[in-house]
């Protein structure tokens, strides 16, 4: 990306609750126009990161910038749907839109009403009487009608049934294709995201594990298989993410920085979900310094 101003940029960002770091040393840049997935297990710090990005929290360390500015100063440009899509349940759908119109300078009422019309959500219905899927769609509509430049969604599909989940992700995919809005959505479900997202941030144990374009990540990660051996240094391998050995066979999931030509190793492609799981697997035995720099390296590419 030649753009120096990123949609979202974190620099050694950290947030501590008491003595526990919910997020630590988090550095990444999210270029504008991307649909990015923020992936990690529960408790990895995804919500903390998003709350820092929308200004609901202030950092304990480092900084976060939205379009180059502190989050508190760019509220108008940020659309946010919090986890479990909170709404005022006693309000009608119409009153919810009125609230959005009254509280936001950039507000597209036509878009909001058209969208709800398409979804068949009546304006006079109390929010509490909508289905979970409709509530999620209303929350998304509220965020979209703000005409945001960046849309942040915290576990938007976690509480939805499979059908509502599919509909919601379709809506997101459409928004992403238009390319006007940068989207960052967090999830602990990886399978759904591949169809919608083109950028990935993996967060685990309060730290960033990997950041990058999904196509690039898929291209540079390979599975190496050989008869049992110590891996040692392999030409073209930048880092071994996961190692799995049986007495007969050694299997590696690696990040490459060039073609792996060592004939001892059998090279094969690997799915995104497996890559993500390999990175998340790190958190189990603690995060070493090397992993942090791995993430940094990825960022600087």
């Amino acid at each position, binding site marked *: 990306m030649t753009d120096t101003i990123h949609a979202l940029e974190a620099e050694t960002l950290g947030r501590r609750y008491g003595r526990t770091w919910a997020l630590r040393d988090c550095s990444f840049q999210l270029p504008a126009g991307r649909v990015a997935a923020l992936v990690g297990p529960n408790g990895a710090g995804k919500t903390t990161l998003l*709350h820092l990005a*929308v*200004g*609901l*929290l*202030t950092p304990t360390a480092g900084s976060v910038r939205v379009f180059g500015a502190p989050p*508190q100063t760019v*509220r*108008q440009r*940020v659309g*946010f749907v*919090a*986890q*479990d899509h*909170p*709404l*005022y*349940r006693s*309000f009608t759908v119409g*009153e919810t839109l*009125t*609230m*959005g119109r*009254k*509280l*936001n*300078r950039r507000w597209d009422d036509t878009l909001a009403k058209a969208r709800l019309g398409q979804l068949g959500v009546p304006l006079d219905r109390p929010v509490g009487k909508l289905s979970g899927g409709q509530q999620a769609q209303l*929350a998304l509509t*509220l965020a979209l009608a*703000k005409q945001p430049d960046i849309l942040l969604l915290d576990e938007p599909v976690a509480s939805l049934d499979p059908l509502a989940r599919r509909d919601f992700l379709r809506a997101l995919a459409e928004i992403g294709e238009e390319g006007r809005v940068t989207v960052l959505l967090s999830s602990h479900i990886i399978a759904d995201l591949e169809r919608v997202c083109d950028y990935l941030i993996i967060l685990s144990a309060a730290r960033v594990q990997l950041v990058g374009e999904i196509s690039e990540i898929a291209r540079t990660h390979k599975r190496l298989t050989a008869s049992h051996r110590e891996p040692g240094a392999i030409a073209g391998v930048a880092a071994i993410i996961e190692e799995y050995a049986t007495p007969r066979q050694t299997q590696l999931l690696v990040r490459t920085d060039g073609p792996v030509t060592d004939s001892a190793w059998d090279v094969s492609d690997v799915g995104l979900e497996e890559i993500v799981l390999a990175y998340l697997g790190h958190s189990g035995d603690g995060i070493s310094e090397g992993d942090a720099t791995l993430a940094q390296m990825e960022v600087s590419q």
Partner: protein
Amino acid sequence: MIWLTWRQHRAAIIAMALVVAVLGALFIVTGRQMADAYQQLGVGDCLAHPSHPNCGDIVGAFRDQYGTYIGASAWLNLLPAFLGMLIGAPLVARELEHGTHRLVWTQGISAGRWLAIKLAALFAVTISATILMTALMSWWHSTSWNQLNGHMNPLMYDFEGITPLAYTVFALALGIAAGALLRRTIPAMVVALAGFLAVRLPMEFLLRPRFQPPLTYTQDILTVLSPTTTQTPLRGGWTLDQGWLDSAGHHLADSTVFQTCDARVGGTKMDLFQCIHNHGWLAFTTYQPADRFWPFQSIEAGILVALAVGLLALAIWWVRRRIA
């Protein structure tokens, strides 16, 4: 934001308006009754002319008829606590309970501004209602009870001047701060009520009597029956304590006085008083005089407003720094 404030608090605001309307109607009806009775019984006349025969009976008749009204009005001291519970406590707590603070604080305005506008709007509404109630009650007292009891008696004092406003401001601030810190509506409502009482009761029974040292008025019991009685400095004051002094100025227990001068069978009130007089014993009254109304109102309101400002500052800081 004003729209949102109205939409979220309209039930409480409408309830408050209804309470004011119903009480207002009651005050107008009963206020006229009392004013008429005051005229018809000739209470004003008898108070103005101390030599008036059976003034005690006339005043007694009025008190018997309407004392329950003024006594019942003391319960209205709790009204500010309800404002704190129903408007103050849920203000922040309900948002936190339902997670809707993450909705409303990520719209176009900051949590600080959200709180500032809500506070301004809700204080404006509740203060207006309190001013209206205070005006109504001041009128209600003015046609009769102020002549009988003055303004310092808690039944009057608590509903006149500026302290009712100060209690409203304090109760609301307490509810808001409790809601912000406790993050849950029901416990915040409990704290709003308990905290209000914890300030309200000691204020009247411990602090207010001591805002300035009370005065003591002593009189020979026989002069109580003389025509000049109503002209004593006690008139319109707040009586704190009454008792007896011996000729050396020491307190005497009521039991000592009455055992010594027991009104025996056939003995009249006059015999009793004569006996007390013959012993050289004097009746004393400690009291806060009528002209301390405004100094006391100012002190009390000052304490409450200072508490309210502290609580609001805490709530605002907590919302902006700790929650948002």
